[in-house]
């Protein structure tokens, strides 16, 4: 029951809010559903290959391989791989959380998972040209340059603060059967 509430609570709340919106402002309520409908389709189109890749990675990549590439002992190379993996994506951070989950399950270092997620949020190579076109080259260059440092800072600051118990918990929630 608790799991059910956890899983559907947020969606139920959002739906309820949208129904209230519909009653108070019928036009906005309808517009919201229309927006959401269009977004859901775009989202499904964008996300379908991501989930196929998650499945393939889960089945084919051995835990040992992942640990070697992005695990505790992978060092600078592991962080670099995580950074590149994150920055080549053009999806919003929340959409990549299931990917983060599978990386954790396979034994990727937490700091590297954070590098991956933070890089995917602030240095998106496929969107760079779009950002330059909208906000200018100087803006984009400085923002990206500074953010590359920030990404690693955030990841390693959090990694330092985490206790072994915290780590166990995170690996636990993403473990087998999760």
């Amino acid at each position, binding site marked *: 029951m608790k799991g059910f509430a956890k*899983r559907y609570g*947020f969606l139920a709340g959002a739906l309820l809010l949208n129904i209230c919106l519909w009653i108070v402002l019928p036009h906005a309520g309808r517009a919201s559903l229309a927006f*959401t409908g269009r977004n859901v389709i775009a989202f499904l189109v964008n996300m379908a290959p991501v989930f*196929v890749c998650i499945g393939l990675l889960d089945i084919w990549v051995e835990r040992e391989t992942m640990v070697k590439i992005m695990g505790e002992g992978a060092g600078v190379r592991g962080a670099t791989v995580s950074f590149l993996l994150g920055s080549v994506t053009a999806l919003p951070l929340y959409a990549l959380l299931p990917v*983060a989950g599978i990386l*954790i399950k396979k034994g990727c270092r937490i700091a590297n998972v954070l590098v991956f997620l933070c890089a995917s949020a602030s240095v998106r190579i496929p*969107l760079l040209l779009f950002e330059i076109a909208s906000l200018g080259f100087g803006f984009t260059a400085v923002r990206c340059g500074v953010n590359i440092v920030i990404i690693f800072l955030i990841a390693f*600051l959090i990694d330092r603060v985490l206790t072994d118990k*915290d780590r166990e918990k995170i690996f636990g929630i993403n473990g087998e059967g999760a």
Partner: protein
Amino acid sequence: MNTVFTLCLYGVTVILLIISFGKDKKKTRMALKRGWRIFVTVLPQFGAILLVMGMMLATAPPETIEIIMGKESGVRGLLAPAFLGAVAPVPVLIAFPVAAQLLQNGAAVMPVAVFVSTLTTVGFVTMPLEMRYLGKKVAWMRNLLALLFSFVSALAVGAALG
């Protein structure tokens, strides 16, 4: 640009699927099933996030950003855009052109920079999902640090571009 990314992603996925299928049909079917199961698990949360996004876009058109931004100057002038970026789950494809419009209309660089930064790195609406994968502690720390460093990044952009 986003379309190019999507096409590349499809291309890579199809190639991987073909290789996988060639190697082991049963394992490939298992992989697809696994991906589907993970997708179904997170679907309600994704649905909720998209619904909040829809409500936001329906009640507050992108021009609202213009109203909220740029009333105050200095560091206080950065708080409203930072907060707006942190709570609004607006896709960058919509937000970047609005931000560009703001700059063209003479808005200061720093508030726009802090807005772009918090928009992409901080997500209070998506935090429940983040907690599900990273735990409460990491999700809170990541978002708060990202919020804090958004100011650093904005100050740098502001200092560099004046």
